């Protein structure tokens, strides 16, 4: 079976949707020459009207996409840096997200915002290393963080077909993942549906994005001590509460590992939503970035601020001692 890379999976999803639906088009900086690689080959195949390279005017091109979507198009907007989402936060949250309700249902805003390489790309330092998915989960914009090539393909396709705005974070830590995938078997993956990557009985580990791979590694490492279930929500908003509750109701224990800041992050939401409905055997735990994290440049500092396998392992072990 061919090895499909995560990056190539995103590229294929874009190509397939551009081919399938004339209303899909891409907007972004340097997408012509595919500086991020996810748009490689698309200009040649689909032409400059549908692969539109933009001036550095993130606010305008984000709202341009909103307007195009109001007129029935399905724009995909690529951002080179996760923090550019801060720059267009108003345009997404205050306009794209609000138009359907404010107009009383007169319109839809099917825009996809794609961030290839979110989170830390080692050495890119403070302003290029954010992982702001929890912000979008808070405001209620559909938020997707695929962990594997097949999910990257399937979730990006579903995002493009969704009638609402969707932000797709492709974590830098997952971009180089490759897996054996029968390319013909690639399918849309429904938004809002999680995935159990590994069955286990003692504890449910909710892992987001690239951390799914870390969670699986830790689970394997600990296999002789504890039976770990790894739950990948895939979509952070809307969250697959049913899927998660099924898992946690069985295991009775919960750890969340997520690469966003601790306070008001998706880790907090997962814990709150679970304890509102399930009595756990032991207090739940989170492994996250610290509160207010800014990633320092020096690689060892950068790593120290991100959640790691050691922390996850220790969280699981402590939790098993607690009850």
């Amino acid at each position: 079976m061919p090895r499909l890379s995560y990056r190539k999976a995103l590229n294929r999803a874009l190509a397939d949707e551009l081919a399938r639906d004339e209303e899909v088009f891409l907007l972004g900086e340097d997408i012509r020459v595919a500086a991020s690689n996810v748009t490689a080959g698309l200009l040649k195949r689909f032409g400059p009207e549908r692969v539109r390279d933009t001036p550095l005017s993130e606010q305008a091109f984000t709202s341009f996409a909103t307007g195009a979507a109001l007129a029935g198009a399905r724009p995909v907007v690529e951002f080179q840096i996760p923090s550019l989402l801060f720059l267009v936060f108003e345009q997404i949250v205050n306009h794209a997200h609000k138009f359907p309700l404010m107009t009383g249902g007169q319109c839809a805003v099917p825009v996809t915002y794609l961030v290839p390489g979110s989170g830390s790309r080692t050495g890119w330092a403070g302003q290029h290393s954010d992982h702001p998915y929890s912000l979008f989960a808070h405001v209620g914009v559909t938020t997707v963080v695929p962990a594997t090539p097949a999910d990257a393909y399937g979730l990006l396709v579903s995002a493009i077909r969704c009638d609402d705005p969707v932000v797709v974070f492709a974590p830098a830590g997952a971009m180089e993942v490759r897996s054996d995938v029968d390319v013909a078997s690639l399918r849309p993956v429904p938004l809002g549906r999680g995935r159990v990557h590994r069955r286990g009985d003692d504890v449910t580990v909710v892992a987001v994005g690239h951390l799914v791979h870390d969670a699986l590694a830790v689970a394997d490492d600990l296999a002789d001590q504890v039976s770990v279930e790894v739950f990948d929500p895939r979509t952070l908003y809307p969250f697959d509460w049913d899927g998660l509750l099924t898992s946690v109701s069985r295991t009775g224990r919960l750890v969340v590992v997520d690469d966003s800041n601790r306070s008001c992050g998706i880790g907090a939401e997962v814990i709150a939503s679970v304890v509102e409905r399930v009595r756990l055997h032991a207090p739940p735990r989170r492994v996250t970035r610290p509160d207010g994290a800014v990633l320092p440049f020096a690689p060892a500092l950068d790593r120290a601020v991100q959640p790691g396998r050691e922390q996850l392992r220790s969280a699981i072990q402590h939790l098993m001692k607690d009850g």
Partner: protein
Amino acid sequence: MTEADPVRLYRTVRLIRRFEERAIDLVRSGHVVGGIHPYLGQEGVAAGVCAALRPGDVVAGTHRGHGHVLAKGADPARTMAELCGRVTGLNRGRGGSMHAADFAVGVLGANAIVGAGGAIVTGAVWARRRRGEDLVGVSFLGDGAVNEGMLLEAFNLAALWRVPVLFVCENNGYATTMPVAGAVAGSITGRAEAFGIPASVVDGQDPEAVRAATAAAVGRMRAGGGPEFIEARTYRFDAHHTFEHAVRLDYRPPEEVARGRSRDPVEIAGSRLAPDRRAEVDASVEAELDAVVAFALAGPEPDPAGALEHLYASGLTARAGGG
């Protein structure tokens, strides 16, 4: 109509005037909650601009938006019902004064964020033209908006991609209480010219002058030209917002207000009609507005159980906030 039609133009101006006055009455009586930004004094701009448009053209309005909505052809009764928060309103009572929209007649919506409309209408026009539709767009904006970076970015996109959008700046001398001279370095038309957008100044108090200038600009745009810019010099006769009726803000010298009010678009357009023709129009407008207000107040208020209807076009249902 690209031809002058003094009766129709007068009727529109008069309709907007009386609509606003009735709306202010309804603010006073508590039927319009939250107040409005009255368009009184600026009617000539919306009326003149929209008189030069076709039904298939699209406009994006502002917080001071009723005039644009009415001039583009939205039903005054459903517009007033929207202001009153009724299910019979344009937006089913979800939008109110600052978000009144009627996609069926090309009104993409009033917008409560200064400077936000420009990029949205640019994207909408671009997307529909790509599909082969022959239309132009108008972005209404205030003098305050030309200091907003997002709008300036939109000028660049529209100019670069030659999207036929007419930017109409209604220079009423103030952004809330801030005079133009205290806010705009350089000139208003110079802002557009910097992007290679042809810009002209027109007497915004003369609806026919506005119509003629718009027809010329729109004609160039339909003939394949890029965006255009018109600064319409006008004056706001009333408060920035009706809250100012209660709180006295001291920023316009009384002589200036008197001078501004002396050039009234209703009088200017009305003086071009024979007195009896004018009286006929006035009577018809009055009759229409009686019906408008009756319709608005007769509409049912929306059911709180449906408070989040239309939040997601995809059909997603938001999780409730209750305990």
